């Protein structure tokens, strides 16, 4: 069940970060290890918008210090999963 939830979260996370991704090719093959800045070439300023969209989509509050810990897709999925449960 948790694994299924993680899959759903991953799908939603990919959808949210997609519009901020410069390297769409890397997005198509993204895994939990994919790095947002280095691999997807997301402008670091857009992390603010991504966090706001996570909060809206998952109905959670993400403290700044927790947001700062996100560097990979997996980090985002794990953090959202933790806040949901």
């Amino acid at each position: 069940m948790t694994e299924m939830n993680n899959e759903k979260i991953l799908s939603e996370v990919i959808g949210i970060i997609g519009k901020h991704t410069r390297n769409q090719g890397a997005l198509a093959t993204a895994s939990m290890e994919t790095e947002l800045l280095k691999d997807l070439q997301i402008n670091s300023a857009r992390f603010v918008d991504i966090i706001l969209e996570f909060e809206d989509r998952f109905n959670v509050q993400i403290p700044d210090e927790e947001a700062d810990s996100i560097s990979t897709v997996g980090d985002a999925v794990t953090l959202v999963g933790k806040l949901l449960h």
Partner: protein
Amino acid sequence: MTRKRVVVTGMGVVAPNGRGLEEFSAALKNGTSGIKFFSELQELKFSCQVGGKPRSLDDVKNEYFAQDRLYALSDAMLYAGIAAIDAYRNAGLVIPEENSDEVDHDTGAIIGTGIGGIDVFAEKVYPALQTGRVRRMGSTVVEQVMCSSVSAFMGGIFALGNQVTTNSSACSTGTEAIIMGADRIRHGLAKRMIVGSSEAAGPYVWAGFDAMRVLISKYNDTPESASRPLSASAAGFAPGSGAGILILEDYELALARGARIYGEVLGTAINSGGMRQGGSMTAPNKKGVQACIRSAVVDSGIAPGDIDYVNGHLTATMADPHEMKNWSEALERKPTEMPLVNSTKSMIGHCLGAAGAIECVATLLQLNQGFVHGSLNCEDFHTEISAFSQCVPQKSVEKNISIAAKASFGFGDVNSCIIFKKF
């Protein structure tokens, strides 16, 4: 040091009556007005409910920008960006790859705006502040609201390593930007400059002018008749918007790469009237205007009589008669001896900060294609300057132009003038 010659090798335009050179040129030739009625202005109780706005770019913007870039673009940035990319390609240049680390240190950008990101401020910043939701504004506000928004993002598109900046001199902005870029090449500080200006459309940009009662309010039912420069019934300008961009190059560079040359920036001048001798924040000192035109002529090394076409500032306010007299005085030509004069604003309205650049594109198109477009809606020519009526075509005429003058004048009593020569 001998100054470098500066030529125009590319152009792009996003105007109320056409996007791209082909469409814009056809609109000029055909006398197509871009002025429309806006129900939003009516609902907001504007006196003037008409204006000029480029048609929606939703169907083409994805061809110019990836989704992540579009996310952070304001309307003024989008207009400028599309016009700049078109201009760069029109100059035969290839846009650098995103993943290339090469920086073009010989090329810069001076892209002006008059009102800036006031629309973004009104739509995003103010509502968020009023409701205590600053954190919810997101990351894009600064890059959309900062005065240099319309130039800053060009650096990334074209990998610019030379000066990248924004000028702002009210309605003189666009012409001034072109002159500032040309100066940089003239003095050997850059080999190529992307220059021009952009202005957003809509109630937040236009409201202050409506409040000043300088916008036309009598033609809400017939918008295409609303922009009436040089007309006896002119009673204010129709607001406009859009962007015009030129690629300026060192002549030697353009020659070496076999670039098409639309014209040479033969001479230029920028000055101010000091808000004296009749000048004020909102009115020009006529001596300043005449001095600006004369300086541009002298800088060009031509005689005033060599100019065979004038693209006027001519906004459809009470300043039009004064402007015609100023051209006559400065060029030392009687009304009956004046070269052909028209107002591109008669079709697109007054595009504020973008006006000068869009009108320079119009000037160069006419120079290259051998026509002078009709100045619309002046069938009832202003009686105070009726002697000039013979030099203002009301319909497009074929005319072989060698040297054209373009001037812009703005709030703050600021002036700019460019003399273009056909190549």
